[in-house]
């Protein structure tokens, strides 16, 4: 494996980790506030569809992004209603949302475009195109640093940089703001937050809303960034991998960055080397694609550093006793 190949694989890993990172941070807000969300997958899928449709109709990727966020938020609202207002089972609600997105996107796609659930291909301004950072071409001849800057760091769509910027932002919000403190408290001990006179309901809705916005960006990136249009079931389990990454990262923003990078790298490697030859044994691509899930099970079981979820996660808050 030579240097340019490594750069290429890393570059592909960065592209593939972006939706995972956004969805993972989305789940982080929701679950830190005590609302489990296994509907990340569905929200991403819905966002991908609405983003691609509106981007196609208007020719603007930015309007597409707004539509993606709106589509995802609509499902967030359902999740909020069932798990916060009506104190239903959050897991069941998540399952329902995933199916809802999976069915509705095809149903509406077929109705609007008649292409069997796809949207027409997007081109030009309807997609988030790659942006070249300043001096990328000038620096390219410089050894080592040149290719890293020009080929790895530069040349992604704006959403990739946005996703990376969300990591320190999330850290700051969670650990350095009053809102973040309350958000974390509501996931650990909602009664204490309530006693302090802060609305548990409002905080949790805010968290679920932020989760919807981030999933919306993730979906928009899938349909208008990494590919050119919506395809049936295009989220392809990424929401679940993001969930796995969230556990892997133990519900912390910086760790989420590393976890999603690891899973993105695994996917990039599996794409490039369908059968990875390690000399003694050949690792089949299926193993590589299952590795994120296997790692999550191992981490969750606490064999390698225990992952403890927010204490009030999954439980609806009942005010009166």
């Amino acid at each position, binding site marked *: 494996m030579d240097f340019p190949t490594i750069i290429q694989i890393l570059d592909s890993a960065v592209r593939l980790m972006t939706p995972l990172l956004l969805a993972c941070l989305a789940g982080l807000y929701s679950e830190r506030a005590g609302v489990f969300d*296994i509907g990340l997958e569905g929200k991403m899928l819905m966002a991908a569809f609405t983003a691609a449709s509106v981007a196609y109709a208007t020719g603007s990727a930015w309007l597409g992004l707004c539509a993606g966020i709106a589509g995802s938020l609509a499902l967030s609202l*359902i999740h909020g*209603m*069932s*798990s916060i207002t*009506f*104190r*239903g*089972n*959050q*897991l*069941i*609600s998540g*399952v*329902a*949302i*995933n*199916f*809802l997105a*999976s*069915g*509705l996107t*095809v*149903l*509406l796609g*077929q*109705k609007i475009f008649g292409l*069997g*659930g796809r949207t027409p291909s997007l081109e030009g301004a309807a997609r988030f195109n790659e942006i070249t950072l300043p001096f990328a071409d000038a620096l390219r001849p410089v050894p080592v640093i040149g290719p890293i800057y020009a080929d790895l760091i530069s040349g992604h769509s704006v959403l990739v940089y946005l996703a990376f910027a969300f990591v320190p932002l999330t850290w700051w919000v969670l650990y350095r703001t009053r809102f973040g403190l309350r958000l974390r408290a509501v996931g650990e001990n909602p009664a204490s937050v309530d006693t302090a006179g802060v609305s548990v309901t409002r905080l949790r809705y805010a968290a679920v809303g932020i989760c919807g916005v981030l999933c919306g960006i993730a979906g928009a990136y899938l349909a208008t960034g990494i590919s050119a249009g919506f395809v049936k079931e295009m989220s392809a*389990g990424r929401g*679940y991998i993001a*969930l*796995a990454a969230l*556990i892997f990262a133990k519900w912390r923003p910086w760790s989420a960055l590393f976890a999603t990078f690891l899973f993105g790298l695994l996917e990039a490697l599996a794409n490039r080397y369908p059968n990875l030859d390690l000399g003694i044994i050949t690792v*089949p691509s*299926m*193993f590589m*694609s*299952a590795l994120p*899930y*296997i790692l*999550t*099970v191992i981490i*969750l*079981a*606490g*064999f390698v550093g225990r992952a403890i*979820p927010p204490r009030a996660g999954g439980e609806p808050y009942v005010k009166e006793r």
Partner: protein
Amino acid sequence: MERMPKWADVVLTPLISLVLAFAISAVVILAIGESPVEALKVMVEGALFSSYGWGFTLYYTTNFIFTGLAVMVAYHAGLFNIGGEGQAAMGGLGVALMLLFVPWPHWALALPGAMIGAAAFGALWALIPAWLQAKRGSHIVITTIMFNFIAAALLNYVLVNLLRPVGKMDPATANFPEPTHLPSISDLLLSLGIEWGKNTPVNVTFFIALAACLLVWLLIWRTRLGYEIRAFGKSEPGAVYAGISPTRITVIAMLISGGLAGLMAINNVMGEAERLVLNSVEGAGFIGIAVALMGRNHPFGVLLAAFLFGFLYQGGGELALWTSIPRELIVVIQALVILFTGALDNMVRMPLERLFMALRRKKEA
């Protein structure tokens, strides 16, 4: 004090939830410019107006009974098993291994053998998440989701690299030997001189599914183990105080649940496809969630709900064939049923409770 009479709790609430789910489905159909009445007509005609339709409806019903019962048993123990999909897929592997490598002389002997293989593989796939939940405290919902994906990858590997016959391209096993083919119900009836459901996949597994309903009912409400499972599901501290071991109940309930999900493979792998293909389960494991929720976690309810989904599935196929409504409508209906009967249960329940309380107060006054 009871807030609502029992009939309102068991019948009225789920019924209203269902009506809401179907009403919104009708709105969805209207939104894509089709007529809900017309769609319902096509579905009923396609699924119930011919023995051909019934043959398929009952075939799907059989699948959903198994996966519905699987979710139900785990639910009584307070465990949410989303892993039915993976467990049923692994059950398929168990069936395939049993039928390909044991020379069965007759299907009546092969059937129990395949059932053992299916249940064992399904149960094994549920055992690891169960053990991890009981001993290591890892959340069973997350582990079973992960195990669905791991099962898919594992089966992909096994079918492509190990069980695929030499010279074949598609990732599937060889056809099972002739003597292991299960008789379809249409064959059975034909031998009695009745012509019914020609070329439909419903087979003797349907009767096994009915028996499974009865057995699960006996297990949950008429045995000591069933009592322990229910007690544990209602209150873990209470169960521990009564001397019930959480580890034991978690593991046993999940073994039964996984075994039931695995048994579905008798129907689709042994009975219908007669070989193991990639993605043989086709989402039936997930439909089990909707079936169990709609059936109020009672075997009789599961039977009815499985039949409803069998009808929806077959009717949905007909819709895709005769109208411009895609099959995915069924996925939307499934989602709405799960949402309203599962997650938004309180939306219907709370106002109803208030209504009944008000009625009672009026009567007392």
